[in-house]
């Protein structure tokens, strides 16, 4: 029998999924949030050249790269990484993870269509310049253009489902009373969206060098507070649900909010991730609110908070076993 004494933050006896899963969940949230934001933006604005807009450009990068890094992390977390392809040929309709694999494939497909159509001119130029043989690709993109509007709506829905999926993946674990919680998918969707917004801010302000009072920043600012308040509300629901759940749920709540992971929650999630950004958004004067450096700082806080939330939920969730 194990002789470890509590608390041992990263090595609790019943820990099965560790850091790489927490980072994977974090990266998927960013991807989901950034894509939802960009689609909302593109559909509410008549963009002359969407490929030159930095919110769209950010989504093209944030929608794909974090997802691919996340999937790579996931594959190398397998005990048999080189058998990962078996996941794609043996779908199980009752397994959340298997449905997630399918979701990824469809999401990536629509992501590629979306990017290809919006960046058609650029892709065309590249092909002409470097590999003229691939001319037919332009024709395919042309064909995709006809279904673009529908594809974009589907991509938006898939992005939202992806955000919730990260929560469903954990809430299916009936062995851990804290994770086996119906609020989790909604909470992960909300926090993922806020991390996607923060990551987009970093992209447009650092890579895009947009001004702090640009039209894009004004647009994104509208979403920050409502989403953060939603996130806060869902966190409250999450814990109140545990508190009234009785039995091991109450034990899980106590274990989670004490010791190391309690500190991660109060300092990382609540203070850095929610309170500071919320106060900064609500009470800062417009001079600050539209200052690029200030926004970058707040966005970094926001991202740290969301990463802490993923770590907290995953690790604290595995502290307590169902009786």
């Amino acid at each position, binding site marked *: 029998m194990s002789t470890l004494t509590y608390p041992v933050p990263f090595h609790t006896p019943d820990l*099965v999924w560790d850091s790489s899963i927490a980072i994977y969940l974090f990266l998927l949230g960013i991807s989901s949030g950034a894509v939802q934001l960009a689609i909302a933006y593109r559909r509410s604005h008549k963009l002359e050249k969407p490929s030159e807009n930095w919110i769209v450009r950010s989504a093209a990068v944030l929608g794909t790269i974090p997802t691919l890094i996340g999937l790579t992390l996931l594959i190398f*977390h*397998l*005990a048999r990484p080189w058998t990962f392809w078996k996941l794609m040929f*043996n779908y*199980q309709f009752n397994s959340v993870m*298997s449905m*997630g694999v399918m979701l990824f494939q469809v999401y990536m497909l629509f992501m590629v269509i979306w990017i290809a159509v919006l960046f058609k001119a650029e892709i065309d130029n590249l092909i002409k310049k470097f590999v003229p043989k691939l001319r037919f690709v332009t024709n395919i993109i042309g064909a995709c253009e006809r279904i673009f509007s529908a594809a974009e709506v589907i991509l938006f829905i898939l992005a939202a489902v992806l955000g919730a999926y990260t929560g469903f993946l954990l809430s299916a*674990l009936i062995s851990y009373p804290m994770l086996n919680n119906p609020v989790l998918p909604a909470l992960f969707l909300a926090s993922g969206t806020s991390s996607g917004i923060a990551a987009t801010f970093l992209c447009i302000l650092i890579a895009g060098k947009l001004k702090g009072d640009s039209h894009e920043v004004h647009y994104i600012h509208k979403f920050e507070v409502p989403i953060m308040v939603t996130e806060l509300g869902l966190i409250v629901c999450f814990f109140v649900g545990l508190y009234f759940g009785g039995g091991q749920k109450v034990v899980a709540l106590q274990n989670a909010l004490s010791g190391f992971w309690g500190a991660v929650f109060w300092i990382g999630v609540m203070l850095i991730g929610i309170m500071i950004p919320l106060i900064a958004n609500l009470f800062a004067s417009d001079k600050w609110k539209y200052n690029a450096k200030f926004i970058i700082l707040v966005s970094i806080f926001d991202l740290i908070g969301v990463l802490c939330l993923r770590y907290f939920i995953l690790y604290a969730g595995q502290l307590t076993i169902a009786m």
Partner: protein
Amino acid sequence: MTACSRRNFVSGMGALILTTGTSVKLSAQGEKPNETAPKRYAMVHDETSCIGCTACMDACRETNQVPEGVSRLEILRSEPHGEFPNQEYEFFRQSCQHCTNAPCVAVCPTGASFIDPETGIVDVNKDLCVGCQYCIAVCPYRVRFIHPVHKTADKCNFCRDTNLAAGKQPACVEACPTKALTFGDMNDPNSAVARKVRENPVYRTKLTLGTEPNLYHIPFAKGEHR
């Protein structure tokens, strides 16, 4: 799910037949229960006769070639009851419960974890397992592990591919010096395991999770039952 309810139905019918006169007549005439009906293999650990010798653990390790560092079966010893020299310990068997409603099977993304429809045994198909550990995380009985050699999920399978395939009882049952372990088909009301469950006070763990475990325990008389 359909398979489960059918199995429940069959076991329900078994109990029904048992309480009616016909079955007495049937068994008196030496008629066997329907051979083709699905089995539901189950096990009883009699904590009142277990002496904690761990012969079962060793036999399992040998028969199923379970490497050091992991185990398919553990006998957990309680805190002592009573004062020295009259101390007594309670022993608890921790191993796969072959849940009729197995969460490890439900979450497995490749179908590697499965319930054998003919026996109700929960097993892992090594070829399909990618080692995602979802099943390890979801098992409320904490009996799954990654096999250090095969790198696939592993656990007790009632010696499905070893002793059972050879027509023998599971290794732990054969090895037990006090006959504390009973194994057999719960769907056959005349099986030793069904009789043990019927004739003794038994308990199963974590029933509220809806897993419908098939490992029964005959409680040690003293102390609080799990």
